[in-house]
């Protein structure tokens, strides 16, 4: 892996991220804006999935999905920039890997939603209660994503970055 990290340190992206005093704070601001929009959209979608807010038609929560995906994309891109800027610090920090594992877990949870829950929801009326599996997926989603947020914020304080 050290070859990969050493290569990252030689890239133009590394220079972009570290080369200007404004680049890191700008990326952080975008990362925070992205996380707010992502968590806001997820809260509305997952609370409905769990069974709260039944005045929201099931189809209407879908309109939030593009915003959640766009916000996640912003955070993925800015996150990759951080990693290219300081690969040894992140890769040597267990909090970073805990965060990544939770992102992957949230990804699998989304696949579960997409293939096992959504087809069921499409057969329901707009204000119907949601099935048990939908509630499980909703609770897991909020747990994983708030975990991602917590481990991300704790990153500088948990574990010591290797280098």
């Amino acid at each position: 892996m050290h070859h990969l990290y050493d290569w990252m340190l030689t890239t133009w992206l590394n220079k972009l991220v570290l080369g200007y005093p404004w680049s890191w704070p700008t990326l952080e601001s975008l990362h925070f804006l992205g996380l707010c929009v992502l968590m806001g959209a997820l809260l509305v979608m997952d609370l409905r999935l769990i069974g709260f807010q039944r005045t929201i038609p099931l189809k209407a929560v879908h309109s939030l999905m593009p915003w959640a995906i766009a916000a996640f994309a912003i955070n993925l891109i800015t996150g990759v920039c951080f990693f290219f800027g300081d690969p040894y610090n992140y890769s040597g920090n267990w909090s970073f890997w805990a965060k990544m594992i939770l992102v992957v877990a949230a990804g699998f949870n989304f696949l579960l939603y997409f293939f096992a829950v959504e087809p069921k929801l499409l057969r329901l009326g707009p204000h119907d209660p949601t099935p048990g599996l939908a509630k499980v997926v909703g609770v897991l989603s909020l747990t994983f994503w708030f975990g991602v947020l917590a481990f991300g914020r704790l990153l500088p304080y948990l574990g010591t970055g290797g280098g």
Partner: protein
Amino acid sequence: MAFFAWLEASKLAEWVRMSSEGYPTVITLHAIGMAIMVGLCVIVDLRLLGRFDGIPYEALQKLLPVAWVGFLINTLSGSGLFVAQATMFATDLMFIAKILLVFAGAATAGILQPELAKASTWPGGKPPPRVRNIAAIGIVFWLCAIVTGRLTAYIMIFI
């Protein structure tokens, strides 16, 4: 300044500043509260501006109390963060700008809440221009609050 020095000498300030778990705990709660408050307020604002038009206004009214839970978390955690370095924050222009923007953002949510209660009387079922303007201003306040909040960590560079 004596008042801020007194705050900074308090037990709470010492716990946040000195203990191994204090600052990480409080800063993480602050991020969680921010995600809840800003995230939900932005969704409500976007809805009032015409996005996600399948979501009924009465549902937004029920989202705002959840947003206020986030605001409460951040008022408490933010107080902890403030007292830990009160004398520094009290004179930091970036921090003062951030706090004013947060209160301005919260004020837009506070104004929108009773307006949403009247949603059934809106002509044509659409929010009146006044409400839409507040929603648009709300998004701008939150955006600026987040950026200035993040930049507060970079005081050295800017002052």
